[in-house]
């Protein structure tokens, strides 16, 4: 097991200690701010690494616009046979060498990191059976770093402490606040997608929608149950991830919505209105080039900007 886990601990602790080194001169080596930034930096790093995959997926989603007539045809032709419908849809994607679905890889890829972080942070908080603090060093988080991290606080709560593992009221309050924050971000992300981001729901999707609604209210409960077992540091990681997911989705829904979704129609309307204002003909094939346009003075020709690949 150590063969698999040790490199993971090394990566996670290495990144955290590395970021800690960068920010120590600014906020101080033992400052909770530095340690919080280190954990958040880990999230940011992972999510930045995953961005190319995300962009790839968005691109293939956009390619679907071309396939829409075919998709409608399939839906109509096999409206009584969901299975056949799905089969034909998949065949269509494959034929056109595109697939709008993300696969669960981005999630699976993050799971080991999350687990490793959990273990590393738990190591900081480890105690002997008699209750004496005895931090366990994992990866690069050892020596002075381990001592420093063990004392680091986030709004007064030690990042290594968990709700159930402490009697400290501050830790409990901070944990609860973080759990509320996590629930709120998940809730808004989900709602945003349901209300704006998805193609209009047809009758066959109704059951899915129902289930989604249940989940919407069930997630806070799950966070509450699991969150009380996690050290504050892990909750910081989790909250940052959620916030990032929300931001990413917000950006996509605003700038690059799924064809057929309410957000897409809204964007189309806005574009049409803007073109009218500019006194130009509406050219539907031109929608791609003005993705990144910022409002400019009317009357001036708007230069189509190159879409940024890197981000």
């Amino acid at each position, binding site marked *: 097991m150590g063969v698999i886990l040790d490199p993971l601990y090394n990566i996670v602790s290495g990144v955290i200690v590395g970021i800690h080194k960068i920010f120590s001169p600014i906020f101080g080596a033992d400052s909770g701010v530095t340690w919080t930034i280190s954990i958040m930096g880990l999230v940011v790093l992972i999510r930045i690494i995953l961005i190319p*995959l995300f962009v*790839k*997926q968005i691109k293939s989603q956009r390619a679907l616009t071309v396939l829409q007539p075919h998709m409608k045809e399939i839906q109509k032709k096999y409206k009584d*046979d969901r*299975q*056949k419908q*799905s*089969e034909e*849809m*998949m*065949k269509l*994607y*494959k034929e056109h*060498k*595109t*697939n709008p*679905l*993300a*696969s*669960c*890889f*981005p999630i*699976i890829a993050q799971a080991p990191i999350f687990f490793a972080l959990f273990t590393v942070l738990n190591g900081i908080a480890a105690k002997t059976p008699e209750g004496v603090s005895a931090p366990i060093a994992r990866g690069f988080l050892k020596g002075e770093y381990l001592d420093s991290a063990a004392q680091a606080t986030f709004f007064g709560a030690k990042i290594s402490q968990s709700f159930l593992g402490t009697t400290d009221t501050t830790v409990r309050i901070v944990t609860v606040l973080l759990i509320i924050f996590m629930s709120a971000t998940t809730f808004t992300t*989900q709602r945003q*997608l349901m209300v704006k981001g*998805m193609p209009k729901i047809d009758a066959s999707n109704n059951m*899915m929608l129902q*289930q*989604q609604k*249940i*989940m*919407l209210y069930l*997630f806070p409960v799950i966070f509450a149950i699991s969150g009380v077992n996690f050290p504050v540091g892990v909750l910081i990681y989790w909250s940052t991830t959620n916030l990032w997911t929300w931001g990413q989705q917000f950006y996509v829904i605003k700038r690059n919505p799924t064809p057929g979704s309410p957000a897409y129609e809204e964007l189309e309307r806005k574009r049409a209105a803007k073109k009218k204002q500019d006194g130009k003909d509406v050219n539907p094939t031109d929608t791609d080039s003005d993705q990144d346009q910022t409002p400019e003075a009317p009357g001036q020709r708007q230069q189509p900007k190159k879409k940024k690949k890197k981000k």
Partner: protein
Amino acid sequence: MKIVVTPFIKIYQFFSSSSSPRCKYYPSCSNYALTAIKRHGGKGVLMATWRILRCNPWSLGGVDYVDEEIDCADAVQTRKNQLIGVK
């Protein structure tokens, strides 16, 4: 094997149903796993693992049944028709 793994997959399916579908394949990896484990036991677990590994950002996905000739829509439809025919 079936008794141990199946409930976990079912729980996963319940929770994952809240997000939009993401599997590149049809049937989804979890459904594939359910069928594979039901039919092949331990070997099914390996089949499912292999399927999840294949379902990644670099694959094109597509239709992929445990047993194409038993599970595909046409076969299911034929069986249904036969059932009605017997009645």
